[in-house]
């Protein structure tokens, strides 16, 4: 069985495990010197890619590692963004030390509630229930005047981190924002790499491959899955905080199911089952969207980017089920990179309950 090897050893296919850290390090170095060469527009795009990479990584923990397909992940992203906006004072910049933990905690609390309820279900139910709970959060912000209703709200001043009178980090400064986002990406990537190598991560991978067997081996799988769900929600909240700081505006669309679907597409696009797949996928998705909606290339058709993107996605999932990562290891046998199981197996499980 290639799956168990892939599950426990989720390093890059094609790269030897010993030098597996080289590629991420090289990318990090490139990203660190990148702002010197970028125009302000492309730097903004780079920040967007980095934030979406954090967001995609958080979902990768659920889908790729644990095998839980959530279609409501944007809820935590959006809630964190709203908390950032609502808790920011009017007259001065809010403190990162206050806003970030607050956003992560509140989104984490919602993830705890949603996870506790939705993890009672399996398979397709889980997909539908997570989607429904995300929609519920969407309606709270969309229908009530808490966060400005359907128009959303503005952050008059972006969060900052000050010690005494000196400002260490000011997110109004594009360069500061870039490096804070990059730091968040390194942190998330490192944390998840550690998780995947820990006993906890191995248990999650075991749940993905065969939950029945894990249960039989004495694992309380429900609590493992719940822990993964809350952790993923908190990391999505980190991305949401950054997105609010980047845009200076928060609207209900951040919680919408289009956003949840997009981030799910990202991790598939990159390739499930590897962290760098999520990063590559986020980059590919943002750039594809940028490419298809560029008037210079597509002219009048640029406004129709949804059509081109949608068709691209369909062909992509049809022809490259393993994602872009799979391209590098063509011809290599590297386990099954799919999170779901065929319906027949699920039915067989349902039958012997």
């Amino acid at each position, binding site marked *: 069985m290639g799956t168990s090897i892939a599950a426990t050893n989720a390093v890059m296919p094609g790269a030897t495990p010993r030098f597996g850290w080289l590629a991420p390090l090289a990318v990090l170095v490139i990203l660190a010197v990148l702002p010197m060469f970028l125009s302000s527009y492309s730097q903004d795009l780079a920040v967007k890619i980095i934030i979406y990479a954090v967001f995609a990584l958080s979902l990768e923990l659920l*889908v790729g590692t644990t095998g839980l*397909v959530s*279609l409501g992940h944007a809820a935590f992203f959006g809630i964190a963004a709203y908390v950032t906006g609502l808790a920011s004072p009017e007259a001065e910049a809010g403190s990162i030390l206050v806003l970030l933990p607050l956003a992560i905690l509140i989104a984490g609390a919602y993830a705890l509630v949603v996870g506790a*309820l*939705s993890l*009672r*279900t399996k*398979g*397709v*139910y889980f*997909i*539908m*229930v997570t*989607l*429904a*709970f995300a*929609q*519920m959060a969407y*309606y*709270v912000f*969309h*229908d*009530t*005047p808490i966060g400005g209703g359907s128009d959303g709200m503005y952050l008059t001043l972006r969060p900052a981190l000050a010690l005494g009178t000196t400002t260490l980090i000011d997110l109004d400064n594009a360069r500061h924002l870039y490096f804070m986002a990059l730091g968040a990406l390194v942190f998330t990537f490192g944390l998840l790499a550690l998780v995947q190598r820990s006993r906890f991560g191995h248990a999650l991978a075991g749940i993905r491959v065969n939950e029945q067997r894990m249960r039989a081996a004495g694992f309380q799988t429900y609590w493992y899955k719940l822990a993964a769900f809350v952790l993923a929600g908190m990391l999505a909240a980190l991305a949401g905080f950054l997105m609010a700081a980047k845009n200076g505006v928060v609207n209900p669309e951040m919680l919408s*199911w289009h956003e949840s*679907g997009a981030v*799910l*597409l990202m991790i*598939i696009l990159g390739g499930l089952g590897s962290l760098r797949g999520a990063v590559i996928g986020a980059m590919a998705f943002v750039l594809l969207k940028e490419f298809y909606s560029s008037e210079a290339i597509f002219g009048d058709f640029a406004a*129709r980017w*949804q*059509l081109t*993107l*949608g*068709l691209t*996605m*369909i062909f992509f*999932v*049809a022809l490259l*089920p393993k994602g872009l990562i799979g391209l590098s290891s063509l011809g290599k046998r590297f386990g099954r990179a*799919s*999170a*779901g*199981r*065929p*319906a*027949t197996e*699920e*039915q067989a499980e*349902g*039958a012997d*309950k």
Partner: protein
Amino acid sequence: MDISTFLVQCLNSIQYGLLLFLVASGLTLIFGIMGVINLAHGSFYMIGAYLAFSIAPFFGNHFIAMLLAGVALSALFGFFLEWIFFSYLYQRDHLQQVLMTYALILVFEELRSILVGNDVHGVKAPDWLSGGVSLGGIMTYPIYNLFASAACIVVAIGLYLVVNRTRLGMMIRAGASNRDMVRGLGINIRLLYRIVFAAGVALAALAGMIAAPMASVYPGMGGHVLIVCFVVVVIGGIGSISGALIASLLVGFVDTFGKVFFAQLSGIGIYVLMAIILIWRPEGLRSKGY
């Protein structure tokens, strides 16, 4: 709340619940039999509404004829869509089905925007269904809404009869409970799937056509209905048509009365209902154990 308002709200709840049932029954049929989770199901509802808007001028007051024509067109559309797209999804896992059908929504939305634009439209009810009827001399209630409920009831009864009383229905029930056995018995499963899918699309589109004169026809309508349908299917138990009926009516009542009592937070009522049901019965009210 006086008795007449209460009565009107009850009628509204039933009417909304029945419309939901038409959409949700198609969704649950398609999942129950082919095992495909279809996010684009809401788009069929949207397509139905825009279809009504597009063909209404040709039919004038022959509203029933228009509905039948629309059902035929959408069933044909479903038949070919299954052929060129959905038949490739059966062998894939749920995650890939979610992504493919999500991408399909983007395609449908953009095609709609190209064909009929992004404006909000209204569809006029035919003359013979306009106006109100007095209920016990206290309230008047729009005739069209009564007609909509009646039409949904007729369709629901028809669906029940087809599934439980015909040879086709027997195959459908067999396919839902044991796919491999049906294949093994030499039934043309491809054709069966195509028919079921076409029926699912036609049901959703019919709901859209019936809804068009009551609500406006707007671009985001498909997405909204899809989520509510998911709630219905989760509450009712996936693959169960009777569960879908019970859950639709429940959701209809909770949503309608929620709007009366909690104006601003009414949007979340049905999700709270879903959470309560999940705590009590994680598999839904009438699950078939998928």
